[in-house]
């Protein structure tokens, strides 16, 4: 999974997909991940799945984090995974967070989203989850 470039900080693209403008959560997570030593690229609002994958490939990111608050998660999160598949980039890990009901979390994981963080998640829980997958975020 880390075969792309082992000795450099883990790079994460955080994105708001769809029409939703609620960016409180994604900004808080962006700061926390940056403080934890990750390189964070925040795409800004109203990205299509194609734009998100473009950004991840251009930035050579290992991880994509999606923020979803408008109820469109069952369409948009799988669309990002599908786009990665189409572009032969499934080594990029996708996670998400936002207003996502329990049942949908199971279904999204089944569809290839690695993890989803529902409301009430601590920042530390997200950092811990990333650390498990990328043990040395500041290897560079």
């Amino acid at each position: 999974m880390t075969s792309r470039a082992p000795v450099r900080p883990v790079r994460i693209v955080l994105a708001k997909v769809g029409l939703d403008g609620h960016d409180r959560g994604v900004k808080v997570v962006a700061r926390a991940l940056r403080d934890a030593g990750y390189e964070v690229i925040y795409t800004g609002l109203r990205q299509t799945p194609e734009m998100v994958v473009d950004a991840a490939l251009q930035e050579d990111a290992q991880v994509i984090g999606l923020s979803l608050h408008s109820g469109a998660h069952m369409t948009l999160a799988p669309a990002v995974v599908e786009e990665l598949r189409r572009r032969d980039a499934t080594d990029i890990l996708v996670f998400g967070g936002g207003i996502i009901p329990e049942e949908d979390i199971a279904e999204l994981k089944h569809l290839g989203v690695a993890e989803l963080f529902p409301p009430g998640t601590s920042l530390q829980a997200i950092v811990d989850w990333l650390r498990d997958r990328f043990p040395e975020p500041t290897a560079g």
Partner: protein
Amino acid sequence: MRVHYSRDTWEREYEAALKRDDGIETSTLSGVEVAPLYTSEDRAGAPEELPGQYPFTRGIHAAGYRGRLWTMRQFSGFATAEQTNRRYKYLLANGQTGLSVAFDMPTLMGQDSDAPTSRGEIGHCGVAIDSLADMETLFDGIPLGDVSTSMTINSPAAILLCMYLAVAEQQGVPFTRVSGTLQNDILKEFIAQKEYIFPPQPSMRLVVDSIEYCAAEVPRWNTVSISGYHIREAGSTAAQELAFTLADGFAYVDACIERGMQVDDFAPRLSFFFDAHIDFFEEIAKFRAARRIWARHMRERYGARDERSWKLRFHTQTAGVSLTAQQPELNIARTSVEALSAVLGGTQSLHTNAMDEVLALPTDRAARIALRTQQMIAYETGVAGTIDPLGGSYFVESLTDRMEAEAEAYFERIESYGGVIPAIEAGFFQKEIADAAFRHQQALDQKRRIMVGVNDFVSEDEDDLEILRIPASLEREQAERVGEVRRRRDQAKAARALDQLRGAAASKDNLMPYVFDAVRAYCTEGEIMGAMEAVFGRYVEKAII
């Protein structure tokens, strides 16, 4: 027993007393330091104030809730116009006294249900409205001369207002009898909610156009609901919510005056919308301070003569961000505390959140409990019997003064940027809000603030709530419906209306009559926005972390 007053004795005893050392913040939710005790010394020399009298700290009505209770106005909308129409009839039958429309994301963003980027978004966070045809269905059987309706719509607000008026026209209701509220607050979109479409200047022009039009044609319509709710939900403190919202209000007043309107011709129809968060007294102080600040500025700075221009009327919604997905039934308790603060703060109307809104749109059952919570406060608790019952509380009055001072300090900072729009362009508000949101999340992570069920008092075995599901088939149906509207209408008339609108956008004309013609010609929302976008362009925010 000897009774005497000694502040010194109390201070000694307080210092000597054991204190909790659980690490929990004693400042307000916004980080305002509060003393353990307030006395008359904190309010020495404070003037006597009465409700219904300038500066209205104690309320805008002399009779308070004895005169009239607040309007119980539950924000709702989901799926199709037909389904939402049924929910409205259900709420009205259950004692709700006003309607409040929630639109879905494509409608809020000014695009049609069959646009490619509407995929997955249709009917999820509100009702899908593409054209006048949908609006006719939404209010079918609801007499628009008898109910008042609030519409939460901003960038395309002018279009949705025209659709509503067109339905009133069909029902034979004269515009002078139509009442309601349009959110129409574009400034807070740039600041917090981010549902902007056009750049700030043409966006402001549309707001002023609608204010000017309503002042002449729809005198009972509240033209802008100047909103702190979204600013607060995006992470601001109470003082920032207060200050940024009122600053936006003043910016609309300035813009209308610049257009050549007289302040008393439009100011009485500006209204406000605040958040009721979980820090009880801080919220009450915020509402009271808001009234006082608005009254002072309108009278002293803008020279308004009509008392109605001085009176800040507001709607309140309990805080969505205070709700938890964990042990969601606790949200009923949170919401009732928040609703009580709004009532004690003198709100004119109130939305209480449903317990399941942290997961999805509310089910019928959850929506009913939320409405019943307001009815309990109104009819069981007795709090509506006395006007401004916390007036004179040493603490609440001190906190009210403090809120006012903090807001005034923010007005100066905003002014130093050259006003609200330059401050938006400099990212000032966005950064202030993001900083506050981050501080709050850190306090939760470090357990300096507690959310029950989230970072303490966690239950392992939680029952799942039943949640409202929007069927996937809806997307295709709504897309087909808008296609059908486009096919069936008088094409020449629709094309002409759009052409004329485009021409007017490039001129200085008030756009409302042109938008109205396009609506009557069954042009879709996306088409009407498109015609204006061709002239105005589209705003792109510089992303600030």
